């Protein structure tokens, strides 16, 4: 499988893909920190269930974890980008016809899929690192300008930064797997991105508005909880367990389809 991973990593070294991916992570990290700090320092509060954002209170912002609060706040934006990249990379093999060469070279297709997943996970780790670094460099001047106290931000620095990185990374991997699964089924990046984003950000938001329907099992809710290290609605451990369940189920479905389906593209 190492060969499949190295091969996939070579294909992923496309300048346009990496610049777009890491560039958008940078942009969103800068943007969310500017908005979040302004919002929090102004005493604003979001309506409950507002999709895609989880801004901290001023007290939380001034606590040690406030340093990395931007990562959780922007997790859905990062997630959309990650889902899109994983979908584009997966569907691209079908669209370009490259899948024919790959399967002919390595007929054990599960190895190809596993190699792709591992390679994308490695790059997702790199993208998470970019977001984390940009977040730190963005929030410090923003907080200073907005008058938010940063005195506590050096406390437990490694645990805070590492924890936030791990949480965002895990959430992004789930977003990515969602993109990969839909792209494998649809063999189209446009369809995969539309369905993925539409489901998590639109469909689930509508479901959440229905008071009689419990929403703590929904993927979007779970992903927000994983990225934030747990929320009032879903404990971190529960979120991780559910996310693992979603990922396992998704990879089994994608794996069966990937291995069994005729390559006619």
């Amino acid at each position, binding site marked *: 499988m190492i*060969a*499949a991973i*190295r*091969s*996939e990593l*070579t*294909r992923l*070294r*496309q*300048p*346009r*893909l990496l610049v777009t991916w890491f560039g958008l992570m940078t942009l969103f990290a800068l943007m969310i920190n500017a908005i979040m700090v302004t919002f929090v320092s102004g005493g604003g509060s979001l309506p409950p269930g507002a999709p895609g954002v989880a801004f901290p209170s001023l007290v939380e912002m001034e606590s040690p974890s406030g340093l990395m609060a931007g990562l959780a706040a922007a997790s859905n934006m990062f997630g959309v980008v990650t889902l899109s990249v994983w979908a584009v990379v997966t569907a*691209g093999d079908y669209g*370009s*016809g*490259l*899948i*024919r*060469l*790959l*399967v*002919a*070279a*390595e*007929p*054990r297709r599960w190895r190809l899929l596993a190699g792709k997943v591992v390679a994308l996970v490695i790059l997702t780790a790199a993208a998470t690192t970019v977001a984390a670094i940009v977040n730190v460099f963005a929030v410090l001047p923003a907080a200073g300008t907005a008058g938010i106290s940063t005195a506590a931000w050096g406390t437990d620095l490694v645990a805070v930064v590492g924890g936030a990185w791990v949480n965002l990374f895990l959430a992004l991997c789930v977003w990515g797997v969602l993109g990969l699964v839909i792209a494998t089924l649809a063999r189209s990046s446009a369809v995969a991105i539309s369905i993925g984003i539409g489901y998590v950000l639109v469909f689930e938001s509508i479901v959440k508005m229905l008071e009689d329907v419990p929403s703590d099992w929904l993927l979007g809710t779970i992903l927000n909880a994983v990225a934030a290290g747990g929320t009032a609605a879903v404990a971190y451990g529960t979120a991780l367990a559910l996310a693992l369940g979603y990922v396992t189920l998704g990879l089994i479905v994608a794996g069966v389809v990937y291995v069994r389906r*005729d*390559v*006619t593209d």
Partner: protein
Amino acid sequence: MPVVTTTDLTRRFGSITALDRLTVELPAAGVIGLVGPNGSGKSTLIRILLGLIRPTSGSASVLGSAISSPAHYASRVGVLVESPAFIPGLSARSNLVSLARLRRLPLERVDAVLAQVGLMGRDREPVKRFSLGMKQRLGIAAALLSDPELLILDEPTNGLDPAGIVEVRELLRDLGRNGRTVFVSSHQLSEIEAVCDHLVVIRFGKLVFSGPMTEMLKRTREHIDITAEHAADMGSLEAALVAGGWSVTAVDDVLRVAAGAPRAADLNRAAAAAGVTLSRLVVAQDNLEEIFLEMTGRVDGELANGRAAVGGEVA
């Protein structure tokens, strides 16, 4: 031992039968041509041999291993299936490196195949800047990466300029001479005729012919193309010849008479007897294209009609 054996190989796509109990053996070494009209099942056969799709029934083996286990022979087979497929944003070299890594090959092979297809020097350019012909060369380079015993190429001269076609022709000949088997599917019958030692013709997914090219070319016949001095005489000339028992077909602006060189003088006299002076009389041999068309139908429309006639199947 044959490099490829199929027995009653059948593949259906819904109501369409792409391969219909195909049984064929391909000999080892040399260049083997696979020809057939559009929709005859060529690509389906190649895809089944490569493990890209599964047969509905029947069996096949490649290099002695059953197609149910393509991993057993994948490392010994190089492929170019339809149009070459690469990542446009990556350089030619990176595309090949990714395939070399997947096949666990030393990266020196990348340099070797780039040189072999004449792309050294352009190898660091993104593939999106390549012409179709250059992409085709890169596709052949990818197929040669593993220095395979069996090379399966689908339309390898697609998009190449005349010089490129000649180069690929020479390359295929060389590869076939060096103990390798090259299985090449092409619509360019002149290419097939010039390069192949063995020919497989399929139509409606069924085998029409499989044998040495020389055996196929033995089926060729001579014909005589004639043209009247005055175009207005062509109709009366055709009628007179038919009345005289000649087999005549109008092809473009000439009359094609099924006869060989020994009857050329008789034909000339028959025309003179009909009061027509010939401005041109050429004795020629049928080529592979003519035999192929006779075997498989002259046009795609004919093929489609044929399919409809044999059971509602459409190419």
